[in-house]
């Protein structure tokens, strides 16, 4: 393992210190760890997310005006703990409640759910919306369901803007759920990655092999196959996304009427000819932007063949897996509301426009 670290046990803490020094407009808190907009939130819904470290710029890089109000970083690839989300929530609560945006990983879901229970005990209204956009996984009957990938970034952007516009908690939760069912992603890996704590690669892959259908935690994908050209890889990922059916599953959410957690059936959209979409071509960490442009060129072609028009795009490092080489593609079907909120000004370390 070759990494720019001091002590493997301290990486998250040291990275967080550096983040705070580099971005003094964002407050970094320790023990428990969270980052939050300075001065908290007044008179609007607070938007909070979080997850393991190692996915930078997700989520700390998205804290700022027009996006997240707070983010809770866990240890590398390990979900944060409820005390972090509890303190972060209390710090940014502006009296209108908290929307938690959670990627569908068992640990993240369980910890955020416990945190929501703790905040609710304090009289703070909380809704949590789970993002599960990974089309590599076929069903949720025998798995923990589809994982959360790039749609998370769009959900955070759009919901942050909606909070600024004055959406209330119910409207914001409904919007976040809409973005989730409009978004589909799929990723692939050319190389594994190494967490500083373990020091060895997360899986072994021969030089002429690749993993298709990966998540963001260095885990192997759903399929291993001989490596193909950039165009062939892009075609596999994009086609799976564009031809993915209307995925139906049950997601657990808080029901304020019943005062309990309930399972709600959720059904995805399918892409149709004539749709407009926001696209992300995302590096898993080590893949350079130059190669991402090769992927974007093919993605635009495949989307056009399906009649889907890409109206906004992000090409770069948005939701990574340490130094893994590879790419993930996200397409979010856009409507007037999603596009308006996507275009709204944002000022964060990793996403900035309109300011």
């Amino acid at each position, binding site marked *: 393992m070759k990494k720019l670290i001091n002590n493997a046990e301290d990486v998250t803490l040291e990275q967080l210190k550096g983040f705070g020094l580099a971005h003094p407009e964002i407050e970094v808190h320790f023990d*428990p760890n969270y980052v939050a907009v300075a001065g908290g939130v007044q008179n609007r819904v607070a938007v909070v997310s979080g997850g*393991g470290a190692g996915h930078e710029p997700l989520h700390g890089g998205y804290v700022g005006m027009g996006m997240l109000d707070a983010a809770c970083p*866990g*240890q*590398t*690839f*390990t*979900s*944060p*703990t*409820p*005390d972090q989300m509890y303190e972060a929530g209390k710090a940014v609560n502006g009296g209108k409640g908290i929307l938690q945006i959670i990627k569908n*990983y*068992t*640990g993240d879901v*369980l*910890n955020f*759910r*416990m945190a929501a229970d703790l905040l609710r005990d304090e009289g703070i209204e909380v809704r949590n919306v789970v993002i599960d956009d990974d089309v590599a*996984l076929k069903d949720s009957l*025998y*798995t*923990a369901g589809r*994982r959360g990938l790039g749609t998370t970034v769009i959900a955070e952007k759009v919901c942050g803007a909606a909070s600024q516009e004055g959406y209330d908690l119910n409207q914001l939760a409904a919007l976040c759920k809409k973005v989730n069912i409009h978004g589909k992603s799929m990723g692939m890996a050319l190389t594994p990655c190494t*967490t500083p*704590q*373990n020091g*060895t690669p*997360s*899986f072994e892959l021969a030089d002429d092999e690749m993993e298709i259908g990966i*998540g963001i*935690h*260095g*885990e*192997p994908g*759903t399929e291993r196959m001989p490596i193909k050209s950039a165009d062939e890889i892009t075609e596999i990922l994009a086609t799976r996304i564009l031809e993915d059916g209307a995925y139906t599953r049950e997601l*657990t959410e808080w029901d304020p009427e019943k005062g309990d957690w309930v399972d709600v059936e959720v059904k995805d959209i399918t892409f149709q000819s004539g749709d407009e979409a926001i696209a992300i071509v995302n590096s898993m960490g080590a893949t350079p932007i130059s190669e991402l442009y090769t992927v974007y060129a093919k993605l635009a072609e495949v989307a056009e063949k399906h009649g889907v028009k890409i109206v906004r795009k992000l090409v770069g490092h948005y939701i990574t897996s340490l130094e893994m080489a590879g790419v993930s593609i996200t397409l979010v079907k856009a409507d007037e509301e999603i596009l308006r909120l996507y275009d709204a000004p944002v000022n964060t370390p990793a996403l900035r426009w309109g300011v």
Partner: protein
Amino acid sequence: MSDTTNSEAAVSAAAIRLWLQKSADVLAEKRAYLTELDSPIGDADHGNNMDRGFKAVVATLSDKEDVGAVLKAVAMTLISKVGGASGPLYGTFFLDAGKPFAGKAELEPADLVTMFEDGIAGVKKRGRAEPGMKTMLDAQIPAAEALKAAVAEGKSAVEALKAAAEAAEEGMKATIPMQAQRGRASYLGERSIDHQDPGATSSYLIIRALADAVAETSQ
């Protein structure tokens, strides 16, 4: 202890504290092993997380004689230090396991059964899991069943926990051919088969530590 009567089989708060100390010791010792088990089917952090959590647990152990309070402190520490899915799941286990024993300084064998059953019910609810899904429950449930059967036969706490640890070990091994249906391993589908579940393994180690601690303090 060679006798098998119930009367001398009560489990003291000191034995519970020794259990947690022994758990921390074995999890530190097996840290790399647990992470290695977690590597092909999970995200290779189980050993690190459990070691970090139980190190923190040991730091909170005082000479408290209230078993319920000890278990609650363990739960809150695990919830805030472990992270991942294991934090809330083990946290819930200890939280629910300890609830009936607030203010109690020792546990009878029947109390041990209640402790396991309540803890397991909490894990099932929190994780929305059932046996056979390749999770920690696959070690915990057989252990609880063996414990209950042994206690019903009038075995001592030492002997009943020995049976529980053996059943947990069997249950842990039985996860090898299972296809995972919960947690990150479930994403691998059939590729999760032929791997021993890390959560079932840490559960076995913790149950074995309990059996060892009670045997040691009963001598």
